[in-house]
């Protein structure tokens, strides 16, 4: 138990330090950009007086350190500020998009993980056989396809040819009921197709590696049935390295699959980040970057805890 507390505590402390570092880097990066945010916001023919008024209104004339302290304090209190362009609360802008990106990422992951495990375990048990070669070749080909190619192919089949799903996913925010669900389907399928080969190949390699371990041979010699051997002894152990991969992939997905969001016009966090970077909406960029950093930290932490749960040796230390 002490081991668990020590392990969890150290991970948590590391997470906090990482977040502080992320906040500093984010603030520095968004405050030393060469562009003049006032001119970008007001257009190429803004007068000096307009620019001055804008800088004063946004507090851009204060020293950077003072602004950082105020910003961090406000962010911790839940006051994420106001978009300099839309005048909307950043929480109102970012919140719904995080929700949508999270739903999309979770749905894709929940679909991809079981399929990837089934494929990975299946092929690991048939190394070198025609079925392994066929599946490995297909996964390799799909794995090497850019996301947007998969997305466009799905659009062509399901939206253009069959006409059963919408071409774009604006319905995720502007639609309701069935339209909202339909808006998620193509991006989710695309992500699933992109994720499955990657995870499946990891599972295949890991299962193959674990299968050659002495404890597996020992269990087989003890007469453990094949199915039990695979799913009770091999797969849990083979999952340990895969869990970290899944956690990092999940964090990346929440960070916004920018290309997927662009291809499908999916109103997620990545799309907002791209738009906000382009228009130098600094408060929005800062918060999104912080949230993405938080996502990475949290999912890494969850991965560590999952590994802890799956690996008895770590628990007993």
């Amino acid at each position, binding site marked *: 138990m002490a081991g668990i507390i020590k392990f969890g505590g150290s991970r948590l402390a590391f997470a906090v330090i990482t977040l502080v570092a992320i906040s500093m880097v984010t603030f520095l990066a968004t405050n030393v950009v060469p562009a003049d945010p006032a001119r970008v916001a007001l257009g190429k023919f803004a007068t000096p007086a307009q620019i001055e*008024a804008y800088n004063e*209104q946004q507090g851009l004339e204060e020293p950077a350190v003072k602004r950082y302290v105020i910003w961090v304090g406000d962010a911790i209190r839940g006051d994420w500020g106001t978009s300099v362009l839309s*005048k909307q609360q950043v929480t109102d802008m970012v919140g719904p998009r995080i929700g949508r990106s999270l739903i999309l990422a979770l749905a894709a992951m929940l679909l991809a993980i079981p399929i990837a495990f089934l494929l990975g375990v299946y092929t690991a048990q048939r190394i070198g056989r025609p079925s392994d070669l066929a599946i490995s070749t297909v996964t390799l080909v799909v794995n090497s396809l850019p996301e947007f190619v998969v997305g466009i192919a799905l*659009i062509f089949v399901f939206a253009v040819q069959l006409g059963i799903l919408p071409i774009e996913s604006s319905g995720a925010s502007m639609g309701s009921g069935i339209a909202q669900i339909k808006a998620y389907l193509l991006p989710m399928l695309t992500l699933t197709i992109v994720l499955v080969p990657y995870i499946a190949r990891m599972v295949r390699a890991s299962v193959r590696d674990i299968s050659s371990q002495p404890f597996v041979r020992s269990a087989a010699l003890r007469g453990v049935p094949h199915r039990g051997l695979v799913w009770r002894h091999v797969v849990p152990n083979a999952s340990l390295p895969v869990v970290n991969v899944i956690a990092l992939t999940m964090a990346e997905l929440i960070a916004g699959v920018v290309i997927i969001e*662009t291809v*499908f016009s999916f*109103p997620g966090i990545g799309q907002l980040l791209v738009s906000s970077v*382009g228009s130098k909406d600094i408060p929005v960029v800062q918060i999104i970057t912080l949230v993405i950093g938080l996502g990475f930290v949290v999912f890494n932490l969850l991965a560590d805890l999952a590994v802890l749960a799956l690996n008895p040796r770590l628990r007993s230390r």
Partner: protein
Amino acid sequence: MEPFDPFSRRLSRREALVTGLSAAALLSVTSVLAACGSTGTSDSSATSVAGTTAGGDTTAATKKGGTLKYGVGDAQAKDSLDPALALTSIGIFGHSLIYDTLLSVDSSWELSPMLAEEYDISSDAVTHSFKLRSGVEFHGGKTLTSEDVAEHFKRILDEKTGSPGLSVLGPVMDAGSISTPDPTTIIFKLKTPDAFFGQRVAHYTLRIAQAKTDEWLKTSFGTGPFISKSFRPGEGFEFERNQNYWQEGVPYLDAVVGVGIPDAATRVQALLNGDIHLTDTVPTSALDQVSGADSAQLLDVKNPSPYTFDVDSSIKPYNDPRVQKAMKMLIDREAMLKLLVAGRGVVSADTLIDPADPWSPADLKPFPYDPEQAKALLAEAGLAEGFSEKVWTTTAYPLLNEGAAYGKQAMAVGGIEFDIQSVSSDRYIEAFLKEPIVMDYYLRQHPMVMFQLYYMSSSTSNTTRLKDDKIDGWITELIKTTDTTKQAEIGGEIIRRYNDVAAMLSPFNFASYWGGAGTLQGWTANPISNVEIRTATLA
């Protein structure tokens, strides 16, 4: 104050019924017919009204109702429902659905009444009086008064608001110019005469809203034909029909839903597939695809944009008329138009003014493509060996890099080496008014507005930095002139002179097309919002 009718070429409602010439009059016709033919403002999808397609080429029984889905190309986080801050498509087109201006303009820049039913200009063009239409209500139920109009104009004039409308009003007035003698009269006594103030008040930032600066996202504050039900910056909006709209019988649609679709290819495919009914600028590469489809149509919004090389006229060697002329003669405008936009547009003289616009002299031709004479002129200017210049461009806006590449090849014939600097949008914006040559294109505006913004020596937007006393003097005279014949004479002289003395290279004006569903009828082109859909239907 001597009465003056600024709508001199505008028709009265009765006259409009007889002749039906202008787009504004067309609007009146359809609304009157609708009032006669419909059963009121029912949201029934089966009510028949007289529908008119763009250009007035067809009149057929069409069905009232339905929801138009609009694919927005540049939905951005900076989208706002505050008309003072209109910058993006949602501001420029979307706001036209929920707000009204005092006056509106059609594609020929003819004025027609909107919230103001009467408009008088004093003979010295200093005092402008507007009589508001009575009984107009904001979406929240408040009656529109002159105080609301005054408040909106004052917000635009306040630098803290950060409105692009400040550059429209600022040169001629300040907050002290406004008076409201009674609830339906607003008078603007300008700092300087302006016979074209009517054009200014039709600007997209001057759509009248109740002043509620902190609540733009929560409630609808306009008087327009639709009411905002929801609005999400960067994502879209839902507007529904204003049942209490002051203009009887319109709009015909039940609702308009805007959805952000940033990727142009996705937007075009969504239009072809019938997922959306309207989309903003169709990329050049997809024009043939859309025009050839049964499910879609190209909407010519009659807002051609000048495509330019902004050249600094104030520095060597571009202040030498021989060099200016040589550069103009090195460009094969027809070839450039075909290469860059597949010929969809018109070759133009270097004026920024569309050849079809009022005052544009019919006989004004661009400098001919003549590389040999260009080389001779450069030699005469002592530049037979040629010279090198940086040309600033960006990938952030379409076709600028392609134009710069074409310019490089064209100028090389005369020994001028274009050193192309393709940079980020930020660096590109910084290059304006600083670097000698910047690739650019302009939005079409009334010629007088173009003169003041881009021709005047004193303008902060004078992209060629031209300082010409004749042009300045003519503009000053023109702005005071209320006689339309005299306006055309002076305007024509200004355009000719600019073509001759400014280092601007404006080889062509490219046509701008929006995309519409095949079922979309009754829309009209509008120079401010691009597309006007009060009388639009989905057949």
